[in-house]
């Protein structure tokens, strides 16, 4: 399953790109597991994704909890808590 990932704010900066396509292994079923898998790449990924309580996510442009399933998703965004307004 090919997933489009997008990153924002300091997650984007630490990883060094604003997005990419990935093919996670089949046992990666939730946003949480996806983030752990990505963090395992080390370097900027580990730096950006090491602290789960500092991260939020959206699946296909909707905010989700970390235990949300990724099956059928097209685009997953990973970012810090929002600070608009």
């Amino acid at each position: 399953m090919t997933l489009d990932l997008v990153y924002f704010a300091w997650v984007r900066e630490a990883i060094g790109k604003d997005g990419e396509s990935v093919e996670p292994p089949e046992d990666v079923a939730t946003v949480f597991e996806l983030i752990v898998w990505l963090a395992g790449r080390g370097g900027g990924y580990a730096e950006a994704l090491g602290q789960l309580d500092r991260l939020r996510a959206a699946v296909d442009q909707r905010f989700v909890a970390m235990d949300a399933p990724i099956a059928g998703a097209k685009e997953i965004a990973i970012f810090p808590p929002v600070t608009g307004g």
Partner: protein
Amino acid sequence: MIPDVRLGTTDIDVAVELAALEGLGGGAVASFTGIVRGDDALIALELEHYPEMTLAAMTGIAEQAAARWPLLGLTVVHRHGRLAPGERIVFIGVAASRRGAAIKAMQFLIDWLKTRAPFWKREHRAGGGASWVEPREADSQAAARWESRA
């Protein structure tokens, strides 16, 4: 009533927005304008956002407000990009028959925009430093007080 929700980079003409809401026949218009603070040697505030999601998230919040209170008009305008101290970031205006609905809906809208719309602020300071704004616990608490109201 269809909420008027906009996202852009140009300045917000508050007088024009308020006049439109005041012309809807209600007895009350409440508004909020968020402005870039000029403290701590700040030279610019940069707002990043999620282009494919931002307007839909803002519209969803506006529709929540319209479902919770009897409103005659609702305008939300949010800017992104690089803004200087003193510039407007966001405008929220709400028209209703009476002040209670207008004021509550306005407070709800800014509380939820701060915590449920995909924007990220970065502060640029004199001397070249820049830092991402950390979320404030007070903002989360302010947003959570509206949770129990279905």
